[in-house]
């Protein structure tokens, strides 16, 4: 088998897109193409050895966990990497969070919300909304960690 990522969502496009999620579909999960794309090809996966900020959020026994590393230069996030355990929603929102934050001024990054992530993904199933907090929380805590460290090493 070739690497999974080369297959992407191509043949399934319609399957995941056509039935509009409605109230009564709540029991079944329909992700849109963007979510699936970020899930199958998550951006910025990995670790940063000499990170300037780090966060560990979530509880794997409750369904998801995320580790986030940032590298900061001149008030910018110049590198960002993550690793996530969780459902496709957790992985896709993790990926999108890092994608949005990459290159941002810290203050702009801090202003990012879960809504921004969901919007950038073009929406996410109702019962996966909570996932979007994972990335945002990790980002905030990593920035906090960076600021803490900066304070301690002036």
């Amino acid at each position, binding site marked *: *088998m070739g690497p*999974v990522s*080369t297959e992407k969502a191509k*043949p399934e496009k319609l399957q995941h897109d056509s039935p509009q999620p409605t109230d009564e579909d709540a029991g*079944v999960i329909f992700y849109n193409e963007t979510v*699936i794309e970020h899930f199958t090809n998550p951006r910025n*996966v990995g670790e940063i050895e000499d990170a300037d900020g780090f966060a560990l959020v979530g509880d794997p*026994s409750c369904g998801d966990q995320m580790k986030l590393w940032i590298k900061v230069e001149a008030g910018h996030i110049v590198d960002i990497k993550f690793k996530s355990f969780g459902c496709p929603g957790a*992985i896709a929102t993790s990926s999108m969070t890092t994608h949005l934050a990459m290159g941002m001024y810290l203050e702009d990054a801090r202003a990012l919300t879960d809504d921004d992530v969901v919007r950038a993904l073009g929406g996410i199933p109702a019962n996966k909304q909570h996932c979007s907090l994972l990335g945002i929380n990790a980002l905030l805590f990593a920035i906090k960690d960076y600021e803490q460290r900066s304070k301690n090493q002036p």
Partner: protein
Amino acid sequence: MKARELIYFDHNATTPLCTEARQAMLPFLDTAFGNPSSYHRLGRQARSDVEAGRRTIADIFGCRPTEVLFTSGGTEANNLALRGAASAMKDRGCHIITTAIEHHSVLKTCEALGRKGFNITFLPVDSKGVVDPQLVADAIRPDTILLSVMHANNETGAVQPVEEIGRIARQRGITFHSDAIQAFGKIAMGTVLDYADMVSVSAHKVYGPRGVGALLVRRGTSLSPIMTGGHHEHGLRPGTENMAAIAGFAAAAGQAVEKLAAEAARLAVLRDRFEEMLLQTIPNISINSCDAPRTPNTSSICFSGIESESVLLHLDLLGICASAGSACTTGDPEPSHVLRAMGLSSLQAQGAVRFSFGSTTTPEQIDSAAETLAGIVKKLRGVSSLCQN
């Protein structure tokens, strides 16, 4: 990679209709539409078709036609058995024993009976997912009226010692119900009413149609109806009979029994091959209930460090259909109650995927899926915060 055929490894959720069942159903979508309760020839024909279906099912289970009640499916059969028996016997006692690994249609029904004043004991299982008959014996109290233990588990395939449990129940004079919905068609069952008083089966798990199942009820069992209306099904299940579904069920059940030995052997080989391939190519996996007697078609596998829905979505995107836990808990973030009862941690249970094979499964599918799966697990572990690499 070229588009490939769908690989359906979710036969425990539902099965495609077999040709025989489809053929048996078609006349009833056509001219044979009478109501079995009608006086005229179309009605009589319908009646005799319903009774022919009933005799087929009775013959398969070695019981009398009068011991076969058709229901709208497995869930209704389980509800009728438990609610009906509890209500019929409530003056004799209020204690009901079941297990922690039952299907929701038994588990939630026992919980509902618990809210109505019955005392429910949920027996634990061992790490293999099997109930110890001794625990059943020990749980019996003077006020125990009903015992419900499934024949084979839908998530792990673990086969329960229902014959031994049934003997204990009979000795102690307790009505014994067994949900055989996942056992029927997969393992030889014999004359079930010899040891059980009530047995549930469902057509769509054995290549029959949706919307029909049966509760086998041994003569003399106390059972009240849970719905009321006409005199259908010996007054125990009202509503115009679904002849198409009954005919399809009978045809499918006949097929299932006829092919059972050969198909069980074939699937066991495929299942073993699948598991060996995974064990060889993927580190840190465990096979649930692998040391228990299992139905030959079910492989429940825990992939440590990754979450099952992510595995399922990757599989799905590549045309492979599988389940996490039982199908009917999709959208329910709770990890499988079955695996938890076997002592798996919540984290371990979250990494469980169920592959259930069936008539459509080929060796090529097994090989292809095992290979695909290895790639998926590697990829997800590469992303996982719980895995080092």
